[in-house]
């Protein structure tokens, strides 16, 4: 792995929740929102940080950016301790929290960018170079002089990405950057992030519920549930782990005289008098081998191959995590 940019060891965050337990009695429960996470991210990686609602994604991001104090554990981002050195760290990271804005609501967008230059103390020439590039790549020119409060969600999100990157951060934390965007805006944001990733000099941590974001952007996925890491690896490894299967749909001129028997091939369904058949493959046999066998025993009219759906594997992963919630201690 290239030089470590994010180094997290045994990160834990507990919250105390008070519940009514009688007319006058209250009980206090300590709940671990993040429960001992270890994470190492190298320079230039794009990390997909996933999990169901309430899994602890945003809590982790807040601790990594220094706006939330961990209960225990060690965190270093760009070699700095986030809470203790938050302002120094803020100069070296960019953050987009989908529902929080770094833009100035009352002023034209251009003024927000200019103000960002002063706040992050960026030399004018560097600022101009980057802004020109972001204007081109994110198509900002049409609304540069529009007050931020009048921007559409898609325009605002592109502007948030710009302001998060204008100071040339080493790490960018993106918390659901495509939430609520239309298809065109999502594509623009994804294309921009793809290019940023491919340059390889900015580390990106992306949390999202949009599985298309994951498929198109993330080479490494960290999935957390109830504050614990349940998967850390590639998307392929995730499919392998949860037994994802490719599907081959074939249309024949007539039904098969005998079932196809190949290793790892299962006939899932059959319709239209046995002429439309769906096979699922676990990888032991390739789609080509299956089609070859079919062509030797019947006349093929049409075939299509469906890749395993990421929705299925993520849903299976979330559902399979049966760890109970973590009320660690309770006291009256």
């Amino acid at each position: 792995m290239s030089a470590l940019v994010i180094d997290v060891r045994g990160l834990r965050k507990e919250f105390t929740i008070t519940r009514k337990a009688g007319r006058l009695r209250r009980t206090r429960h300590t709940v671990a929102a993040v429960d001992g996470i270890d994470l190492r991210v190298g320079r230039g990686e794009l990390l997909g940080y996933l999990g169901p609602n309430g899994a602890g994604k945003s809590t982790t991001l807040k601790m990594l950016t220094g706006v939330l104090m961990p209960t225990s554990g060690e965190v270093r981002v760009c070699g700095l301790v986030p809470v203790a050195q938050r302002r120094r760290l803020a100069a070296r990271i960019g953050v987009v929290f989908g529902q929080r804005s770094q833009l100035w609501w009352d002023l034209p967008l251009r003024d927000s960018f200019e103000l960002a230059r002063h706040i992050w103390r960026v030399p004018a020439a560097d600022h101009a170079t980057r802004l020109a590039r972001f204007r081109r790549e994110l198509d900002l020119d049409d609304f540069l002089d529009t007050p931020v409060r009048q921007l559409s969600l898609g325009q605002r999100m592109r502007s948030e990405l710009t302001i998060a990157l204008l100071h040339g951060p080493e790490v960018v934390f993106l918390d659901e950057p495509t939430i609520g965007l239309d298809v065109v805006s999502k594509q623009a944001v994804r294309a921009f992030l793809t290019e940023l990733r491919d340059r390889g000099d900015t580390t990106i941590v992306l949390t999202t519920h949009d599985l298309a974001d994951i498929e198109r952007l993330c080479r490494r996925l960290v999935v957390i549930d109830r504050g614990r890491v349940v998967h850390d690896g590639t998307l392929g490894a995730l499919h392998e782990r949860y037994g994802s299967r490719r599907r081959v749909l074939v249309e024949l001129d007539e039904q098969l005289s005998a079932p196809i028997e190949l290793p790892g091939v299962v006939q899932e369904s059959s319709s239209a008098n046995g002429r439309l058949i769906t096979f699922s493959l676990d990888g032991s046999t390739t789609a080509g081998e299956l089609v070859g066998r079919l062509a030797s025993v019947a006349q093929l009219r049409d075939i299509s191959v469906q890749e395993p759906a990421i929705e299925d594997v993520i849903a299976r992963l979330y559902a399979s995590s049966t760890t109970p919630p973590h009320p660690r201690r309770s006291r009256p």
Partner: protein
Amino acid sequence: MIADLATSARRSAGRQYPRTRTIAALVVAGFRRYTTYRQATAASIFTNTVFGYLRCYVLLAAAAGSGLAVTAGYTPQQLATYCWASQGLIGVVMIWGWTDLGDRIRSGDIVADLLRPVHPVTSYLAIDLGRAGHASLTRFVVPMVVGAISFDLHTPQRFATYPLFALSALLGVVVCFGCRYLVNAAGFWLLDVRGVNLVWLFGSSLLAGLAFPLHFLSEWPWLVTGLWVLTPFPSILQAPLDVLVERGSVGQLLGVVAGQAAWAGVMLGICWYVQRRADRKLVIQGG
């Protein structure tokens, strides 16, 4: 490329980019921000002017009713100046109606402020100074001009009064900002700061010298002295108003301004301390 630029930017930022330019940019942004709310500014000016007439007539009538040429050391001209200047300064020090920080704490947007490489107190103060600059040109000037046309106002007898008043009003803004910041910062611990805000509104209106000049309480000198020494309130409005109507010698008024400067330092120090405690305690609302 981004990382290369970032590295060069960081290396050169300290040398090429003085922090004062950041603060100046925030001051300008605060000024620009308020220029976008023209109708609200016009409405505030109108309200302050109407209440200026009401307060001035009531105060002058009360003074005339006492049968004395001088009331609590004020001549009628000084009283009229006190009324109109205090009406103008309401908007400059922004004694009421600032909930920016509290709203951002409640909504969780404070996270965006904390992710900037500028201390939140510095940032909010700079923006507030810009706002005060805008209010000085609009909400202070117009009521003063209307007051000067409609009433016989006190004309400063010493040239030094003008710069001293500007300095005193500036310190009044800083002290008031400190109080407002603390009231709003209570939101870090309390989800709803309306109660704290109500206490602030009541206390500031009464004790800052807005409802009546604090010198009217001269029968209770221990109370007046206590207010000046133990609370920041008189430093917000009464001090600049005393400077403007020249209540005392230059030396005495310099002492008043020095007291304001001390309170400004104390309030900002408390704001810094509270913010540091809040950073440790912080729970950002929402996901």
